[in-house]
């Protein structure tokens, strides 16, 4: 019973953090950008009519509000309904995926946004830094080493647990899944360092900062995911399954805290979006 209450409280945290706090912060940033960098002074920031972006902001607010309300209703149901708790983990996971839909929509539309920016870019000059970008420029070898060590520890951990023949244990599938995830992350890191510049106006310093942030987030998520799976398996092996959903929802909240760092605009140079700005 107490673990149900613990999960309910942790899940309430997930609902509030991902569907209230972060969307509210994002909307605040959008509002700040619209007010401080209007289309009249920063035309390159808006390849489409300004109303389109206001509409997108409105949609983002509405979708999040509905998810927030749905989440609160779900939490209320969880509080008043007696249950065994076996579905709590699934509830946290499915709701987490729903909570990420608005952000995913924004991410997908950003590709289209940058494509329109590139098409509208009439400048004939292009700039590049005569400096080789390398992985250690963006993340300390310590963190990178930590990610590798965590993965190796994970492999040994799975091999060790496999000896006990737990009926619920997936075995080497865990290693395969984690390897695929890390390979995808490695590809994403390579793409962000060496890949095409999506935003044609982005200042060089902003680009480096963004690459650094992406690399750090991906490495951190890799470490967190590995630790999470190990913790998940350990709890199951120690017959403490009732705490798994709590760990799960806290893990999702941690992921959200990390992922939302990618949307910070504190040091972004918006002068590059002015009409008379020089090419970047």
């Amino acid at each position, binding site marked *: 019973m107490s673990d149900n209450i613990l999960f309910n409280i942790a899940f309430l945290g997930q609902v509030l953090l991902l569907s209230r706090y972060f969307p509210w912060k994002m909307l605040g940033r959008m509002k700040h950008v619209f007010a401080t960098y209007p289309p009249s002074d920063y035309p390159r920031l808006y390849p489409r009519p300004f109303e389109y972006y206001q509409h997108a902001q409105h949609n983002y607010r509405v979708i999040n509000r509905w998810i927030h309300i749905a989440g609160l209703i779900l939490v209320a149901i969880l509080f008043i309904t007696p249950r065994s708790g076996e579905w709590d983990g699934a509830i946290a996971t499915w709701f987490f995926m729903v909570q990420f839909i608005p952000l995913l929509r924004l991410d997908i539309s950003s590709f289209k946004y940058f494509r329109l920016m590139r098409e509208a870019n009439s400048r*004939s000059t292009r*700039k590049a*830094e005569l400096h*080789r*970008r390398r992985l250690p420029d963006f993340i300390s070898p310590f963190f990178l080493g930590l990610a590798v060590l965590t993965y190796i520890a994970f492999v040994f951990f799975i091999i060790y647990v496999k000896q006990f023949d737990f009926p619920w244990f997936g075995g080497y599938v865990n290693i395969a899944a984690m390897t695929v995830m890390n390979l995808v992350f490695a590809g994403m890191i390579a793409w962000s360092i060496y890949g095409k510049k999506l935003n044609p106006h982005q200042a060089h310093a902003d680009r480096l900062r963004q690459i650094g942030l992406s690399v750090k987030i991906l490495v951190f998520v890799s470490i967190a995911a590995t630790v999470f799976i190990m913790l998940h398996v350990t709890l199951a092996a120690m017959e403490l399954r009732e705490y798994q959903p709590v760990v799960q929802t806290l893990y999702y909240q941690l992921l959200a805290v990390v992922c939302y760092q990618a949307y910070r605009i504190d040091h972004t140079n918006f002068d590059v979006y002015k009409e008379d700005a020089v090419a970047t």
Partner: protein
Amino acid sequence: MEIIIDIEDTVPLFTQLMDQIKKAVLNDQVRPGDALPSIRQLASDLELNNKTVAKAYRLLERDSVIQTKGYRGTFIHPDARANSANDLNAWILARLDKTIGALRDSGVTDSEIRIAFGNVMNNRNY
């Protein structure tokens, strides 16, 4: 150090790239041993074809301004400063000017010079 390419300039893109790297060497903005971006990175940043950057790098390597060290990448050549000062195009123009002048003095017409030059360039028997 920034490289700026103008895609509407009449100067070929690879020449713009070469000139700017040489200028960077002469101005001490890059020094011998400094690592240069990979062909792919520079092509991607400048939104150019990989072959354009590869051509510029190949010609700079020929002029000993840069050197490629296998998988480790491309670096500024130890003698880059001295070699960047050599303007191969100016040298070609001076040599051709001298040769054409001598031919004209001998009474050869411009038309004959052009045909002969074309034949030599095309490796024809004459």
